[in-house]
């Protein structure tokens, strides 16, 4: 919205838009709200939800912000809570409070239509006990369930585009599947276009082909609140390729998109109006924002840095009112063939008049471009690099874990030691035939990615390290390294590294030939990964080869052994009966051990609270006759590991979840926060479904004084 204050005008605008929309929402299928960030989608959707609640008795609006729901753990529980809260708002006058789902369900059950409460008792526990993607899939059936009882549950998914983030792609797939079910009850989904790389591209074709209207009607005096409303009932079509085009051109730049909509005087929005905005903004911005956007667009189109440089040179050349004939292009700009020129022209930045090329708008002067370039593009690369590093380190605190840091620092030493030497290639390759030749690493800058999520086969970009001081424009090499310790390296790790490195290189104007991708894996490589590694000419080294390399470099490899050094661990084990408050005995022992390990008082409290919850959890699931729970404390230099184990018959997890839920519903107010608390209090919590019982691992890392939590 234009201002942060909430005034009557805002409300009037929203009322007016609601009035326009009322009755247009289709009675089935998905309605997409697409708009730029900050255009007021969320404000409107919340308002819509409130109005539906006030005006449509047969409908329950459930506004779900994926940004909020996915920001924490326990997606399924949070989802269930939000749905049940929405139902509460319709049928109950309870305070709007995020009780755990079991408590909400218990209090709602009697007020729901006969049968619906019973159904929810089955489906809600199933949702919260499922893996997140399955939970999402189940949740998509909730509106159908409600519909069979004459209630329309309208789920409004906000921040929908978040699903296109790399680690949430599985959710997106579930959604994609549901899009194909055309008879699905109504859902509204909203997202910012341009933000997710493949959002639009991934949509099924029947969604892409549905007509689109621009809504609400345009008014140049209004700021913000621009939303595109797509529905089958809308009568106006956009030009083919509108959304991919706008995505490509603006990368979600709100200035551009907003103006594209504003500048169109009719309901038809298309490439012409987009181009006019691009032209308009190409000379009116005073900051470097547009230049950067433009540069990114060009970069995406011309991914070869040399070509990109030439495109930029051409536009700079043309920007001072100069022109160049097409016939002179090959001499001056040999990389720009006719197709490339056409692509630039399609962006509206260059026009052709007769045989000559011109910049589209004479006011885009070379001074402006060079000024922006001097200000932003040519700043000291080392500074920019260090800023990136700082951002990454604060984003993920993984480096506070001593062992990880050890590995990174040690690998940096390895690379430093390799600098200038000729190293046998066999340390880095997995080719069938042994190779006798050598490789060398001159003037290396070190970049590092690390994956420490053993339970998930995905490579996270966790940290980035480099020696910024050594960065120089002429004489630098980059080793982009992925260290995977938790699992075998698969193709997706390789691709992740390649993508990251490419992006990084582009941002930093790093010539690709100067980069060497290197994956170091503790648990080896899959066959497919090796194939990809060979195809892409990456370096790959497993732990054994790394040890050999260290021997070659005459370096200690203690850091590689630490993780395996179980002999250094001290263990204590206690057995507690399943009895009232027996968990406090375990907590007392934990307190003593944690205090000895010099955890501060708050951390000791956190460990105790997590252990109490783990014990209560184990008590509930202890099905054997002896009713005992085993608690083992394993101490290493890096961390305190507490394993809570119960023995008994093999647990049918689905059945247990159902029983537990029934017990919760029929008993007095019971738990619901246990798992959440455990996860919040500890660094890691791992449930293991083991033979004859269950095992829960709680991990708290030891940090040196002065290190953040």
């Amino acid at each position, binding site marked *: 919205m234009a201002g942060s204050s909430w005034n009557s005008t805002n409300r009037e605008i929203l009322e007016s838009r609601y009035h326009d929309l009322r009755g247009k929402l289709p009675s089935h299928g998905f309605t997409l709200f697409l708009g730029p960030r900050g255009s007021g989608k969320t404000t409107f959707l919340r308002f819509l939800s409130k109005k539906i609640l006030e005006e449509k008795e047969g409908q329950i609006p459930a506004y779900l912000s994926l940004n909020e729901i996915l920001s924490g753990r326990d997606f399924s529980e949070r989802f269930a809570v939000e749905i049940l809260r929405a139902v509460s708002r319709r049928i109950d006058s*309870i*305070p709007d*409070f*995020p*009780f*755990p789902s079991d*408590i909400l369900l218990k209090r709602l059950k009697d007020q729901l239509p006969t049968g619906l409460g019973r159904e929810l008792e089955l489906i809600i526990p199933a949702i919260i006990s499922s893996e997140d993607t399955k939970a999402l899939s189940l949740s998509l059936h909730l509106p159908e369930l409600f519909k069979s009882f004459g209630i329309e549950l309208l789920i409004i998914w906000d921040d929908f585009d978040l699903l296109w983030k790399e680690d949430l792609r599985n959710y997106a797939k579930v959604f994609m599947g549901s899009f194909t079910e055309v008879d699905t009850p109504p859902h509204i989904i909203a997202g910012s276009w341009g933000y997710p790389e493949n959002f639009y591209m991934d949509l099924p074709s029947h969604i892409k082909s549905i007509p689109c209207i621009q809504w609400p009607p345009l008014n140049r005096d209004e700021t913000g609140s621009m939303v595109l409303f797509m529905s089958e009932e809308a009568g106006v079509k956009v030009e083919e390729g509108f959304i991919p085009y706008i995505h490509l051109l603006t990368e979600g730049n709100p200035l551009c998109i907003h103006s594209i909509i504003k500048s169109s005087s009719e309901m038809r929005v298309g490439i012409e109006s987009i181009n006019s905005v691009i032209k308009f903004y190409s000379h009116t911005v005073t900051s470097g924002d547009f230049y950067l956007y433009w540069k990114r667009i060009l970069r995406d189109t011309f991914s070869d840095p040399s070509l990109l440089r030439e495109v930029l040179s051409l536009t700079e050349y043309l920007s001072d009112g100069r022109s160049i004939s097409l016939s002179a292009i090959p001499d001056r700009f040999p990389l720009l063939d006719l197709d490339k020129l056409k692509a630039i022209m399609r962006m509206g930045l260059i026009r052709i008049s007769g045989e000559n090329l011109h910049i589209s708008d004479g006011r885009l002067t070379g001074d402006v471009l060079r000024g922006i370039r001097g200000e932003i593009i040519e700043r000291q690369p080392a500074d920019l690099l260090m800023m990136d590093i700082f951002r990454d380190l604060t984003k993920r605190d993984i480096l506070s874990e001593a062992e990880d840091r050890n590995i990174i620092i040690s690998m940096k030493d390895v690379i430093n030691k390799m600098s200038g030497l000729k190293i046998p290639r066999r340390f880095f390759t997995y080719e069938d035939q042994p190779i006798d030749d050598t490789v060398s690493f001159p003037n290396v800058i070190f970049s590092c990615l690390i994956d420490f999520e053993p339970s998930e086969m995905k490579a996270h970009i966790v940290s980035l390290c480099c020696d910024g001081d050594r960065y120089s424009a002429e004489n630098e090499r980059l080793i982009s390294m992925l260290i995977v310790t938790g699992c075998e390296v698969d193709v997706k790790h390789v691709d992740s590294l390649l993508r990251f490195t490419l992006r990084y290189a582009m941002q930093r104007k790093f010539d690709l030939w100067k980069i060497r991708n290197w994956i170091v894996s503790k648990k080896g490589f899959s066959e497919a990964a090796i194939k990809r590694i060979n195809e892409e000419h990456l370096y790959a080294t497993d732990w054994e080869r790394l040890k050999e390399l260290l021997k070659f470099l005459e370096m200690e490899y203690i850091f590689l052994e630490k993780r395996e050094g179980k002999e250094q661990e001290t263990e204590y084990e206690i057995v507690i009966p399943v009895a*009232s*408050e027996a*968990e*406090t005995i375990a*907590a*007392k022992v934990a307190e003593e051990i944690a205090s000895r390990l010099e955890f501060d008082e*708050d951390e000791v*409290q*956190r460990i*105790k*609270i997590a252990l*109490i*919850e783990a014990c*209560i959890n184990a008590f509930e699931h202890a099905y054997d006759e002896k009713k005992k729970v085993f608690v083992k404390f394993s101490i290493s230099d890096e961390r305190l590991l507490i394993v809570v184990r119960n023995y008994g018959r093999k647990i049918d997890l689905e059945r247990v979840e159902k029983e537990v839920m029934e017990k919760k519903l029929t008993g*007095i*107010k*019971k*738990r*619901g*926060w*246990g798992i*959440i*608390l455990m996860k*919040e*209090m500890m660094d890691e919590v791992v449930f293991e479904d083991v033979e004859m019982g269950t095992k829960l691992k709680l991990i708290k890392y030891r940090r040196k004084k002065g290190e953040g939590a």
Partner: protein
Amino acid sequence: MKGKGSPFKVREADGVVIIEAGDYLNSISGEKIEEEVDCYLKKGFRHFLINFEKTKILNSIGISFLIGIMERLRSEGATLNFSNLSKTQKEIFEITGLAKYVNIFPTEGDAILRIRKGFDSGAGN
């Protein structure tokens, strides 16, 4: 803790019901606190303060009882106040969302003073 620890205590001061939570807030103590709150509510008290000074540990079931108490008091137009929370306890109440619905004070004295001010301005019972 059980057998050794301090049980919870209830007293009344300046129209405020002060509950000193015991060292372990679980289902047993949670239920007892709930009963006491019910009892004082019926007597017409409208301000309740739980002092966590002696509370070493609390578990999720205890928290559920606190949520229930909070809900009950809100529905009756009464207030629930917490004091003497440790850093971790405060963190837990923030995680569970309870912190949004209760008044949290550093000490019992601060709480009573603030609640009394509420009385003086006519906001109390």
